[in-house]
């Protein structure tokens, strides 16, 4: 059987397993990734099957985890690192930004850094502080890093394969509140390129662009809008660095309206980049300014307020209405 219905967490697990079977240089490193299988069980069972030498429970030191992964990569290994939660990547941010991102260029391309950094990110699970953040723009802004995020199990599976095979450092953001969402995974399909956007819903009146956890919200918004006779196209970006601007442009030139949706704060976020680029590329096609829906310029709030903070169906539909009103 090559087609299975899997939750995202399990799809990543299967993908890691396959990568480890295929290439003895693939290592998994992180806090609690061994016996516990990670706090989200994404690495469940891997240490049992591949041993402590390949699925490595590390000391509780994120800078150490990424810094040593860099060294292992320099020695020919392909480490896949788990950062337990989004808010805990910052002790490692120095290593990621000042070292991991730049080494290939500084070595005139002579060395490669095939390091994958997995980060469960985003809100909606009722967690405490530092467990619900969306720091993707902070990484996408850094030259030398690639940043991706799957929104379904098939992408979770295949994008992980591609990330591990890539010789570049890849920040792989996992939408933690979608971990248990199931969809079909064909483990023998030939996947599209890692950085290509995908049309999830075709439409003609307006384009919604999203990635990771917000794709589902946008698909629901498109369905709700369809009931009111509006035809909304939903594009899953899949990659936040690089961004498949050609796909966004093609969609916008068809629908003439664009709303970008993400959980991260709007200010200086991915939406700002997309709005600016598309305005440059497609100014004369646009019937309305590019609108953005996202988090506020406020710390991610305590759990009891997160539904107010996170873009939901209403906020997306409100933006759709505002765009269509131009």
């Amino acid at each position: 059987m090559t087609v299975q219905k899997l939750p995202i967490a399990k799809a990543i697990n299967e993908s890691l397993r396959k990568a480890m079977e295929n290439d003895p240089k693939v290592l998994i490193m992180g806090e609690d990734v061994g016996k516990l299988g990670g706090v989200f069980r994404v690495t469940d069972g891997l240490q049992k099957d591949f041993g402590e030498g390949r699925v490595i429970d590390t000391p509780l030191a994120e800078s150490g985890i990424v810094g040593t992964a860099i060294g292992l990569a320099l020695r020919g290994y392909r480490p896949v690192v788990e950062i337990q939660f989004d808010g805990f990547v910052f002790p490692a941010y120095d290593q990621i930004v000042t070292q991991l991102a730049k080494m290939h260029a500084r070595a005139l391309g002579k060395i490669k850094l095939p390091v994958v950094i997995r980060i469960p990110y985003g809100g909606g699970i009722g967690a405490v502080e530092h467990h619900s953040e969306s720091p993707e723009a902070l990484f996408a802004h850094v030259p030398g890093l690639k940043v991706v995020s799957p929104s379904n199990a098939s992408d979770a599976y295949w994008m992980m394969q591609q990330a591990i095979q890539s010789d570049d450092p890849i920040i792989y953001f996992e939408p933690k509140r979608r971990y248990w969402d199931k969809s079909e995974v064909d483990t023998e399909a030939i996947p599209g390129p890692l950085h290509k956007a995908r049309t999830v819903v075709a439409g003609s009146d307006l384009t919604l662009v999203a990635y990771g956890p917000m794709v589902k919200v946008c698909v629901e918004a498109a369905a709700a809008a369809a009931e009111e006779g509006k035809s909304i196209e939903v594009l899953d970006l899949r990659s936040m660095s690089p961004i498949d601007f050609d796909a966004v442009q093609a969609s916008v030139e068809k629908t003439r309206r664009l709303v970008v949706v993400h959980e991260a704060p709007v200010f200086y976020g991915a939406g700002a980049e997309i709005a600016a680029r598309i305005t440059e590329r497609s100014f004369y096609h646009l019937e309305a300014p590019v609108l953005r829906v996202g988090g506020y310029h406020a710390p991610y709030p305590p759990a009891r307020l997160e539904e107010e903070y996170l873009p939901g169906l209403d906020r997306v539909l409100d933006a759709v209405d505002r765009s269509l009103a131009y």
Partner: protein
Amino acid sequence: MTVESTAARKPRRSSKRTGSSAGKAVADPQLVQLLTPEGQRVEHPDYDVDLTPEELRGLYRDMVLTRRFDAEATALQRQGELGLWASLLGQEAAQIGSGRALRDDDYVFPTYREHGVAWCRGVNPTNLLGMFRGVNHGGWDPNSNNFHLYTIVIGSQTLHATGYAMGVAKDGADSAVIAYFGDGASSQGDVAESFTFSAVYNAPVVFFCQNNQWAISEPTEKQTRVPLYQRAQGYGFPGIRVDGNDVLACLAVTRSALERARRGEGPTLIEAFTYRMGAHTTSDDPTKYRADEEREAWEAKDPILRLKTYLENEGHADEAFFTSLEEESETLGKQVREAVRAMPDPDRMAIFENIYADGHALVDEERAQFAAYQASFADGEGK
């Protein structure tokens, strides 16, 4: 000179490393202990406490009420009233012993598990629950009890404590600062850097590491190959291991380290050797990685039971004391339960509060947009 002997600031009996005295057993000198798991009072060459029966009963009361509070919070999490709870079960002696060693003007930098220390500081227990219920990210004024906010990012607060202590020294004050962290956190760069800074600047700070043997699923061996207290030596200050389930030893050792800090002699690392009897938090499942026998072995070293045995054997507490404490516990549990249930959800506009001290134009703009958007629902214009 061994590390633990450098910790002995009081000259009394400091040369005596082993051997028994006055008929009382001397426990493992590597592990400061004044009360054995069997509730027997023992001597240590370097540390001692002299407490009245009333003071001993006070420590016992603190531990019992802290455990009761903790159990209530765990139950409240199971009932859906809290989103998460980090229990301190088993760590009461480490927290009450060290917490009761503090003076009012000392300053505490906790992690997310220091409920017993908070109790000693007079923080209203309900305040601790706000962040676990998800209504705020802290919710108390750190300066009203000299008890800083809980810190979730592990190890970060050790640097804040060090900087605060550097400020105390600059001000010429004689108070001290204490930073709590776990054995797992000891691996963080921040903790290493706080050791460096505090040593270099001779900061009046006590590092209180509760080695509860586990960092979620990872045993201490995944963090270090030498006993944690020995690390201090490499930084140039004393390190000492204390029986973290012995409230008397924790009190004695912390007091001595705080006094040393007050005298301007710099930092001390205390490793309280204890055990996390429950799960890491209510989201954790220790059956995935931990043997039941281990917990059972540590249950025999329960910090509360051993003090109870001692109090009973010495005739320091009678039945009436235990009964009334039992009633007091129940009252506390009930109060906490009621207070949590009555805790209102925050106003949604709180999202935009206290982001900047001086304000920010973008926040003002977003706040206004948010309010207008919310109002559109109230007017029946929303969906």
